[in-house]
Each structure stands twice: as structure tokens, then as C-alpha cells.
């Protein structure tokens, strides 16, 4: 039995420990992520989700407990660069992540720092830009691109490092609907073409409806861990919490209450429309 790609074990994180300003951000978190899994992490403001994300590639180190990537402990200083190569992070603000004045130089920044030969760098940059469908923009200035395009360049810069896992921390929060859709389409294509492990952190449940599994955080603890359907069932049965169902999951539930047999995982506009259309198609045949 192979070991999980990522192990988080009883992770605690306290900011400003041993001072009056001490804040417990993570309070005993444990979970594993398998290679190829698409994990969503959801939580309200202050739930600890961004702190957790920063532990996944050793930007923060545990106050206690452990985080292991491919068996390597993030506290092991000798492993830190290998961990960061394997787990790439995309952050909220696209403007803070781009370093060069030309798109392809920005994407080449990481591989250049690895000291790779120029031919290899070129090949990686070409592949990474193709993967995010930004090849036509290779000679553009990043700061003149749209928000969605900038985030795709940030993703390309990470892909050029050949990571095993991509972590997106609120990567669509600052984007307009078109930019949001672009980044989501890029993640979908990456999953389809490479089966890469993806961890998507968000405060909006509707960003996570396509994940294999969702972990919900509140006050630094894991309060739910399951498939989207399982997690939505729990949220629907509790009330007044910090989490809300995605609109279509809520509508599907209401329709069921109204006696319309909406079955299966109908959490997106497309899946709910498909389900309702097949229902009525059945009714049509039944009548005929």
C-alpha cells in the first residue's frame, strides 16, 4: 500500500506564541491527501484555511504536530526546496506573484533558479504556457493582462517547476466572473490532462463543487470531511453556521422537498439542468 502524497498529523499553529498576542490558528488538524486527489478546503474568514495552506509547502512550520510531503517532513531543512518544488502555490492577488516584465520570462523564473539547461527551460516554458492556453501572450507584459490571465501565468510559472501538487489559495477571490471561469477551466483541464493533485482553498462553496472531497475548517479545526454531497447534507441539516450551500445544491434540495425526484450530485447549473431534463424526458415517454 503506497503512502499518501500529503500527511497532516495533529497540526497546531499558534501565531506569536508565548506572548499576550498569541493566536491559535490551527488547533489539531489531521488528514491525508492521496496522489491525484482533488481536495477542496472551505472555511470562513479566520477559520485557519490560509494558515493551513501555507503549511502545505513549508511557508509556515508547525508549532506542534507534523506535515509530510512524499514522506518528507516540512521541518526538515534539507527537504524544504524539494517540498516547495513538489507543492506549488497560487495566491489570491495576481499582482503580487508576477516578477518579470515579459510573460515567458516570468514563467521561466522558477526553472532558471533550478539551474536547468536553456533547452530544457524553453521546453518547460512552452509546455506550461500551452497547458494554461496562454501561448499567444508569451511576449506580452504581465501587468497589462486581465486578472484571470495573470492567475493563469502564475499557474504556468508553477507548472514549469513540474510540481506534483497545485495549491490554489483563494486564487479566484479577486477576479471577475470571466476571470474566475478561466481559472476554473484551467484547473479542470489540468485535472483531465495530467491527473495532478489539486488542493483548492476557498470561502465560497460553489468554487468547490467539482472537488472529489471537501474538508471544512472552523476555528482551526476540521469540522467536516467528505464528498461534496456528504458535506452539503451536513450543512443543510445544521443551521446558522458559517458555511452555506452552493445555490444549485440548495435549489436541488428545495425541489426534492417539493416532491420533484432530483437525484444524484446535482450541484452545478449544468448537472441540475441535466437531471431535470432527463426527468421530464422520462415523463414524456411515460405518458406516450
Amino acid at each position, binding site marked *: 500500500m503506497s503512502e499518501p502524497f500529503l500527511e497532516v498529523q495533529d497540526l497546531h499553529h499558534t501565531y506569536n506564541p508565548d506572548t499576550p498576542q498569541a493566536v491559535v490558528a490551527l488547533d489539531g488538524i489531521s488528514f491525508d491527501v492521496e496522489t491525484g486527489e482533488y481536495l477542496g478546503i472551505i*472555511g*470562513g*474568514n*479566520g*477559520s485557519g484555511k490560509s494558515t493551513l495552506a501555507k503549511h502545505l509547502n513549508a511557508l509556515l512550520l508547525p508549532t506542534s504536530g507534523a506535515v509530510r510531503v512524499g514522506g518528507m517532513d516540512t521541518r526538515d531543512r534539507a527537504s524544504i526546496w524539494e517540498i516547495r518544488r513538489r507543492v506549488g502555490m497560487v495566491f489570491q492577488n495576481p499582482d503580487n506573484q508576477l516578477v518579470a516584465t515579459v510573460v515567458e520570462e516570468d514563467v521561466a523564473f522558477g526553472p532558471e533558479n533550478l539551474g536547468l539547461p536553456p533547452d530544457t527551460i524553453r521546453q518547460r516554458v512552452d509546455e506550461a504556457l500551452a497547458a494554461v492556453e496562454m501561448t499567444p501572450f508569451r511576449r506580452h507584459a504581465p501587468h497589462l493582462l*486581465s*486578472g484571470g490571465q495573470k492567475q493563469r501565468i502564475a499557474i504556468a510559472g508553477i507548472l514549469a517547476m513540474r510540481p506534483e501538487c497545485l495549491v490554489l489559495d*483563494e486564487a479566484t*477571490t*479577486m*477576479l*471577475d*466572473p*470571466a*476571470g474566475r*471561469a478561466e481559472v476554473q477551466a484551467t484547473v479542470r483541464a489540468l485535472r483531465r490532462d495530467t491527473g495532478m493533485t489539486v488542493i483548492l482553498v476557498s*470561502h*465560497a*462553496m460553489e468554487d468547490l463543487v467539482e472537488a472529489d472531497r471537501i474538508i471544512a475548517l472552523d476555528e482551526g479545526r476540521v469540522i467536516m470531511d467528505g464528498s461534496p454531497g456528504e458535506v452539503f447534507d451536513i450543512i443543510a441539516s445544521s443551521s446558522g453556521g*458559517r*458555511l*452555506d450551500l452552493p*445555490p*444549485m445544491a*440548495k*435549489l436541488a434540495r*428545495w*425541489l426534492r422537498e*417539493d416532491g*420533484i425526484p432530483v437525484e444524484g450530485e446535482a450541484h452545478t*447549473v*449544468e448537472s*441540475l*439542468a441535466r437531471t*431535470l*431534463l432527463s*426527468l*421530464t424526458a422520462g*415523463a*414524456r415517454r411515460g*405518458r406516450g
Partner: protein
Amino acid sequence: MAEPLIACNDLTHVYLRGTPMESRALEGITLRVSRGEMVAVIGPTGSGKSTLIQHFNGLLRPTSGTVLVEGEDLWAPRTDRRKARRRIGLLFQFPEYQLFEETVRRDVSYGPKNLGLAEPEIEERVEEALAQVGLDPVRFGSRSPFTLSGGEMRRVAMAGVLAMRPSVLVLDEPTAGLDPRGREDLLQTVLSLHGEGMTVVLVTHNMDEAARLATRIIVLEAGRVEMEGTPAEVFADEEALDRIGLGVPQAARLVGMLRRGGIPVGDALSITEARRAIAAALRGWRDGTH
């Protein structure tokens, strides 16, 4: 006939005119905001939304055209721009980054103090503004703004704007980055302010919010007014909104797909409306009336 609160006439704004970097951000914008309205301005990034609202309070000067606030041309020679500017309560994006005082009370009183008002009047305005945004002055007044949640901080910033007693509240992406609870609290605050008669202009990326809150929607694209009307009118043109890159609320997209698939379902902008419309349409199927 009452004067519109804000009027833009053939407003054009060109950044860096006469340089190689010249860009036309607004191109002949004509619009009115009347008392008691809640107008949503929607448009993709770079469509000119922020440039537009910075003209409302004279932060930017039109390259050509005019901006009138309560009938007064902001850039006419005799206009007291500072006074005119006070009538427009502008809340920028992520306004919590602009909080700086040690307590919530002091932060909210900063504006009124600068107006040179007497202490009791300042006190009264602060109490009222905090109550308007749903923060209990007793519980929150003496706290440091930096110990509050993101949503609470944002409401403190909004109270600071309200304490200036503006005629219109202009909100730039007020719910960006808030979690569902913070978002809902803030939307309730905006709805109740509007319910009490406040005129609101709301810039948003969120089509569901625009559909839920606005009495009228103005769609900007590439510096021009592309569409304008009630939410029902604007969101009826899914094709145009998709082309612009905005799309329509999820409920509207769903009923559109159902209709194209042959289910004769009525219009819906919210999931509550969609529930009603779909239940009615499917009842029809079951009863065999279609």
C-alpha cells in the same frame, strides 16, 4: 420635478492623454441616479467602473462632459467641490485597510471631527452610524478595529462614511473577500439603509447580488454604457452578458437551459424564484397539460 442626485452627461475620461500610454477609460457616458434608487454598476475588469465612480465625488476630472451632484456641476468655476464631495459617501474596495484609529468610536468620528462639528453632534453621528451598520456602539465602540472580523471591520469603515451624512452611498465591491456570513450581514446592512431611504450605487462582479439588490442595473463595457434596465430586463439577454464576460445569475442560467431543453419554465433571477418556476412547470408535465 426632483433633480437627479448624480447626473453624468457625455462623460469621457482619457488617462495619460497625449502620451503613448493614452487610454480611453470612459467614452461618452450619460446616466442619472435618482433619489431612493439602488443602482448596480456591473462590468468586467477594466470596463471603467472604478474610473466612473471616482468622477462622482470629483476625485477624477472629466476629460470632457460634465458630472452634476444634486444639480451642481462639480467642475464649474464657482462650485465648492469639497462641499459637493461630502454628499457622496464613497466606500472603496477592501476599506478595512484604511482603518487606523485605536478604537472603533474614534475611527468613525474621524470624518465628523474634521468637519469641525461640536462634540455632542459628533457623538450623535457616531452612535447613529454604528447603529445603521448593525454594530452596537456599547459593545463595539471601545474595541480596536483590528480585533474585529473582516465583515465587522468593513462595516466600521462604512459607518465612517455614513457619519458624514452623505446623500448617496457609493460602494465598490462591498462583499469581495467576505465569507457567506460576513457577506449576508453586509448585504442586510445595505438593504436596510436603502429601506430607510438611502440612495445607493453599488459596483459589483457578483450577478446574484446585483439581481437581488438593485432597482436598476447599468452595464459598462469598454468605457461605454452597454445595457441599462431593471434586473429582469438586463438579465433577459444572457447572450450579450456572456459575450461581455459577466454572465447571468445561476438561477437565470438554469431556467435558460431548461427552456432550451424544452421545459416551458418562467423567468427567475434567484433560486427562490427558480424553485417556484420549476415546480410550476413540472406540475404541468406531471398533469399532462403540456
